[in-house]
């Protein structure tokens, strides 16, 4: 995974970006869905460009799953416009699904089949599947090819789900809370798998998650969904204005920890340098973390 430092996505063939909307993998306008009178999705707009890794972040009950399931064609919307790979998921036929890969949450199907049998089975649904060996290699299950799926660990089981999701060479891959229940090492491995897919093949990825570190590690852009509405959209670095928000400068002086909040941390640091000398003990400059911004965004609607 680290062995393929591909210049891929950004340097790839020039793409018309979001501005034109023409090559958008996903385009949603004013999407609404109500369950028994209470709105689950309450006017969502989304644009996801071809080749992008896009994260949808939000607390439980925010409307993430409903939104994604509408995009996946599993659920009908009440109103709004939805276009996924240029078609309305509600009307799209079997061929539309050739371009879509799904990685389900909590699936435990195919338990008595081997990994290889499972991958080969799902390959048969597509006109131009990846070879099964290639897919197992990609998700790191080559050594487990002959094992029954029910004997795999949780993390390996999810790799089978990813294998099924990518075997048809999808243009758009949906990942629904892919690393819930993973140990830290398994999460890192999973992340590098996702990065590989994105960089090698330019697969567009829509990811839902609760984990902020996952968003920072993977996503080009992130949207925060709370109470059925998009509260903010941006890159993980600038979401909610965190790149320009007030910084906190901390240091140690006369054996005491001190700190100050400022819009001009560089000025503060050079003053400190002038006063204390070249090396300021215990110097830290922090901006609000993604978590701070996120909690602030979802807190404001509660």
């Amino acid at each position, binding site marked *: 995974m680290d062995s393929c430092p591909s210049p891929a996505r950004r340097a790839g063939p020039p793409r018309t970006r979001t501005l034109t909307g023409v090559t958008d993998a996903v385009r949603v306008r004013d999407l609404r869905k109500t369950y028994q009178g209470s709105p689950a999705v309450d006017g969502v707009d989304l644009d996801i460009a071809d080749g992008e890794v896009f994260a949808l972040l939000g607390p439980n009950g925010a409307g993430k799953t409903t939104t994604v399931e509408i995009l996946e064609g599993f659920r009908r919307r009440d109103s709004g416009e939805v276009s996924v790979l240029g078609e309305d998921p509600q009307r799209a036929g079997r061929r539309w*699904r050739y371009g879509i890969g799904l990685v389900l949450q909590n699936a435990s199907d195919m338990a*008595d*089949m081997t990994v290889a049998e499972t991958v080969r089975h799902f390959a048969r649904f*597509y006109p131009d599947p990846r070879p099964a060996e290639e897919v197992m290699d990609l998700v790191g299950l080559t050594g487990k090819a002959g094992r029954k799926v029910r004997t795999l660990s949780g993390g390996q089981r999810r790799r089978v789900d990813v294998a099924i999701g990518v075997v048809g060479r999808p243009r758009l891959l949906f990942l629904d809370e892919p690393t819930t229940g993973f140990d830290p090492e398994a999460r890192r491995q999973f992340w590098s798998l996702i990065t590989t897919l994105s960089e090698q093949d330019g697969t567009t990825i829509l990811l839902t998650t609760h984990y902020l570190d996952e968003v920072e590690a993977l996503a080009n852009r992130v949207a925060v969904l709370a109470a059925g509405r998009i509260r903010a959209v941006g890159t993980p670095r600038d979401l909610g204005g965190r790149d320009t928000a007030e910084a906190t400068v901390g240091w140690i002086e006369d054996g005491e920890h001190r700190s100050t909040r400022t819009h001009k941390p560089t000025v503060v640091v050079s003053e400190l340098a002038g006063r204390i000398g070249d090396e300021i003990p215990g110097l830290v400059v922090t901006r609000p973390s993604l978590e701070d911004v996120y909690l602030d965004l979802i807190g404001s609607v509660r």
Partner: protein
Amino acid sequence: MTTLTLRDPSVWDLCTARAGVELRQFFRERTAMIFTFALPVVLLTLLGSIFDKQAAVPGIPSSQLLAAGMIAGGIGSTCFVNLATSIVSDREDGTLKRLRGVPMPPIAYFAGKVVLVLVTAVAEVVLVLAVGSAFFDLPLPRDPARWATFTWIFLLGVTGCALLGTAMSSVPRSVRGAAPIVNLPFLVLQFVSGIFIVPITNLPEPLQQIGALFPLKWMAQGFRSVFLPDAAAATEPAGAWEHGRIAMVLAAWCLGGLILCLTTFRWQGRKDG
């Protein structure tokens, strides 16, 4: 790059692919498989040991009636109980959601189930026939006309039970609930259909009439007509085999079952809407 010559996978290929998965999963789950097949055989052995000595009509032991009826019970068990439970399980473990998310024509899923049901029903019938003829003097007919009768009753019975099993799969909310919810009505149905009590005329009249509303009683009657001498028709409520009525009732249940399936089948569980 992809080229224009790529072809859609054929529906036939996908049907066979699904059938392969269904069969392999069924036969690999050993315990479930053994118990599914064993149930009618065990019932036949236990009940047969009670009825063995009694004669239904002169020269025809009750155990023959029982063995022939148990073929219907076996088909009900593989096609109705087993299919309903397996679809509930598919809904719960993500199989159905997964299959809806891949480019699969829905017919492929059902074709897989049809093959599963046919293979298991044939295996079950062979098993019951083997035990019936080895231990309970069930005569295996030589007349091809009787096997023709067997074939149409088998096919109509399997189709009706499988369609009802598919419709029934929408009732339980979970696999844990599925076994009791599917088994209890099936047990009662076997009882009122004269599968356990032979001849069926030993049952109280109202129970016989309830049984006559459902396909199982007619399947059992049909199989008795295949395997027993014609003199045994005297043990039927009507005193005759009534092939015409059997065909009508079973065909009506196939149609009704199909309508129920089309109107109630759900790809998703209730909790996921």
